[in-house]
């Protein structure tokens, strides 16, 4: 009887471990990498040669969403998606675009300006917290245009917003991803259409 019980216990052990592991995993932080593609803007090119510099903060940008009890809930990694977006938008906006590793990159000297975007803020609204049937994302950027020596030519703030349609039966991850993609499209549209309307940019362009 005792031997049989021991045998049963041995067979139960892996099952118990896997159950506890599943439980613990479900309680942990879920990691979400924003995935999506962006269309190339259909706009007239500005005859400029621009270098783009993505700093480490932008490349590795992530946002942590906390539960109402203060527990880490979802880690949203959006750095790569921002780079994909700018890589789709900038070549459609400017005659020549090169990516540089920093201001000491020798290629910087041959361009008209260096574009260095910064993400200042990322906000998320989940249906479980807002009681609305939509996922919403706000992103605030600081768009910086510098000359090849690193002196600021223009510096302006762009905010983008994205939400999912109502009554969608999406998982939390899919909902956040979809809202973030809409926000990134919003950024691309306002940035590409309003670039030459920014007063500082207009002043700089008039000097060329």
């Amino acid at each position, binding site marked *: 009887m005792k031997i049989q019980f021991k045998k049963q216990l041995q067979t139960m052990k892996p099952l118990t471990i896997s159950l506890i592991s599943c439980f613990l995993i479900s309680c942990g932080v879920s990691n979400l990498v924003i995935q999506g593609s962006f*269309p190339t803007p259909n706009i007239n090119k500005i005859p400029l040669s621009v270098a783009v510099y993505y700093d480490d903060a932008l490349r590795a940008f992530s946002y942590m969403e906390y539960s109402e009890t203060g527990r880490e809930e979802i880690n949203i990694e959006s750095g790569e998606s921002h780079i994909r977006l700018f890589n789709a938008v900038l070549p459609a906006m400017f005659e020549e675009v090169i990516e540089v590793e920093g201001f000491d990159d020798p290629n910087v000297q041959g361009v008209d300006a260096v574009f260095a975007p910064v993400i200042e803020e990322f906000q998320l609204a989940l249906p479980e917290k807002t009681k609305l049937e939509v996922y919403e994302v706000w992103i605030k950027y600081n768009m910086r245009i510098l000359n090849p020596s690193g002196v600021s030519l223009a510096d302006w703030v762009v905010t983008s917003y994205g939400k999912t*349609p109502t009554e969608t039966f999406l998982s939390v991850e899919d909902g956040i991803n979809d809202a973030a993609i809409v926000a990134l499209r*919003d950024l691309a*549209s306002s940035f*590409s259409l309003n670039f030459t309307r920014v007063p500082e940019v207009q002043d700089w362009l008039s000097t060329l």
Partner: protein
Amino acid sequence: MILFLKNKAAISYVLTCFLASCTSTTVDEFRQGETGIESDESVVILGRRQASDFETKSDFVECVGKGMSQGENAISVVPEREFVDAMFPWFEPRTAPLRATDLEQLLAEDVVAQKMNEFGIRYMVWVEGFTETTGRTGSISCTVGPGGGGCFGFGTWEDDANFDARVWDVNSLRNVGTINADATGQSYLPALVVPIPLIARVETNACNRLAAQLKDFVNGE
């Protein structure tokens, strides 16, 4: 046997009438200009999404497009997603033209005009609206026990789908008309062990009627 068949037919008839009477649809048309379309021209149907509190569902826009591109006098309809991506960033929620007169400024951009020509767009249809659920009453309770489970109760609600379609003529850069489709219907959910949903298909009805009316409108009928 004959009595049973007669009863069956009567029950089917009553059920059909009951289900059909669940939804009523009204379509209003306001014409502001002459219309007509050539075989090499097409229409694009776009959903309005600039409002913060609601946005026109892409499923509904797709349904209207499908309805217009099928059957007698079918019209070539460019899919919304394909058009919006190809015209990016000019038709995003915050950048899309709000008035027909804005089209002139938009088409002044040679890249936009060229893309519009490639698609052969003659009419741009802006669909705006949503479905609202009101008057939710009744209650259903479900229990599960060792011997099985079941639900008991009754629920009912009213759905109202209201959609406007504004038709812009890309050639004359004018709003040539507006069509409104309003479908209301009562849905029921009786539960006697198993819940039996009797859903009023207001959105489908609004879509079908709007698509049929738009097709006639664009064809100039």
